[in-house]
């Protein structure tokens, strides 16, 4: 169980670290693009709505794996050559952004119509209504689904091993398939499961707390 324990912990620790920062950066990217998308979804200009719809439709219907491949192997051909971890972030970020956009849009639409009417009736513009009245309230309802998107992102980050990013699952694979059988199978499995639980369970816990608080705030 504990053969080469320190080597194993070291390798998985590195993997966990990569998973965490790739997830974090991707999530930030997703939030930014997602917010833009949400605004385009509810925008007055039809072309903006079409683009947002097309973007969302694309990423919801194509597997993330295929998207990562096309990014990693395709874009260098038009001159954009980046290391694999950057493609990982771009792929995860743009993919998750589609869902973030949808979530934010639902959040905006879930605010009672009266709020928007009230905002308009005191003379606020589209942008001001969004910023001062709608979005702050939408924010509260939107935290739980965003939290679950973060959980999903942590899990999706395991996919970037196919473009060579040494994240947690990649390390686990490498340890288990190690050519010299230096590591115990069960130890690695427990380790990697524990790592994902450590990351995802707290997020779920906070989602549930936020959900309960959101109920009260109404």
């Amino acid at each position, binding site marked *: 169980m504990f053969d080469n324990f320190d080597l194993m912990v070291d390798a998985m620790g590195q993997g966990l670290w990569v998973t965490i920062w790739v997830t974090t950066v991707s999530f930030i990217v997703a939030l930014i693009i997602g917010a833009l998308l949400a605004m385009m979804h509810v925008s007055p200009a039809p072309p903006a709505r079409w683009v947002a719809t097309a973007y969302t439709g694309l990423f919801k219907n194509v*597997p*993330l794996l295929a998207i990562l491949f096309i990014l990693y192997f395709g874009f260098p*051909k038009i001159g954009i050559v980046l290391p694999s971890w950057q493609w990982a972030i771009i792929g995860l970020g743009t993919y998750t952004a589609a869902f973030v956009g949808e979530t934010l849009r639902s959040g905006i639409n879930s605010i009672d119509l009266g709020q928007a009417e009230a905002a308009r009736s005191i003379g606020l513009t589209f942008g001001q209504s969004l910023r001062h009245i709608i979005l702050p309230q939408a924010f509260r*309802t939107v935290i739980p689904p965003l939290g679950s998107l973060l959980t*999903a992102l942590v899990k999706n980050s395991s*996919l970037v091993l*196919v473009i060579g990013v040494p994240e947690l699952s990649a390390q686990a694979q490498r340890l288990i398939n190690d050519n010299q059988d230096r590591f115990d199978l069960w130890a690695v499995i427990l380790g990697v499961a524990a790592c994902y*639980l450590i990351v995802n369970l707290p997020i779920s816990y906070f989602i549930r707390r936020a*959900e309960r608080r959101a109920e009260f705030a109404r």
Partner: protein
Amino acid sequence: MSRSPKSSVLFDALGPRGQARARNASIGSGIVFAALLALAAVQLADQGFFEQSRWVNPLDILIIENAWLPALMSTLKAAVLGSIGALLLGVIVGMGRVSRFKAIRGVASVYVQFFRAMPLLLLIWIPFTIDGAFGATLSMGLDAEGRRLTFLVLGLAVYNGAVLAEILRSGINALPPGQAMAGHAIGLRHGQTMRLVVLPQAVRNMLPAVLAQLVILLKDTALGYVITYPDLLHDAETIGRNYADSFLQVLIIAAFVYFVLAWGLSKIVTLVERKTSRKVAKGAAKVAPSIPLEAGAPGTSAKP
């Protein structure tokens, strides 16, 4: 929809100047966008991306017959079997989640928490590897292909079962308690109340969310890649090896096929949603976006 979309309230209908501005902005950004696309296209053309042979080779009728179609069938097979497994597990665990007995609720809760925290990739690959170390399925007479299908389906079923269990629980909880109470009031036992009053309505309520999850399951069959299950994406790569020039082209073709499949299924889901949006008790909330669903898909299917 019963109320007008928020967006039309947030802004006044645009007057002529506003319309002109919107039009100009659209045209302007459209031009920029088209220019970027053109730039990319020129770059690609330079590298022979659009060369006909690169696209035609992977689509040779022999290859369609011997590679694409079997791969498509494998993908669908895994999706269908995975869905059946997920539905079965989802119902069992979901009922466990709302059981009267605390112990059962606890076990179901642990199941859901655990399997929703793990990446699907590991849920597929780890049992496969464990089995590899102990040869369990081999003694059951499964060949390599069958083994891969088994573990892909297992992973998909276990994971999506957890998600469906959550959806089921939300669906049941979303019904106003009056329904169950009414059932008890007319003398139905708990089991009967569930079967005759609660479940039919709950199922109709959450059908769209369940079907949407199954579309996600279809996309997730691509993860068979890690145990070299011959699904669409994996076989596309193999074709790409035969024609090194077409590596990217086959990926795009495969992505396109997935798109058509998933999009088509979503459309069917929307149709089903429309057909079943009656016959539910008043006050029953639709399984709503606040339910944390999976692969980042909030409960509502995309309204295009």
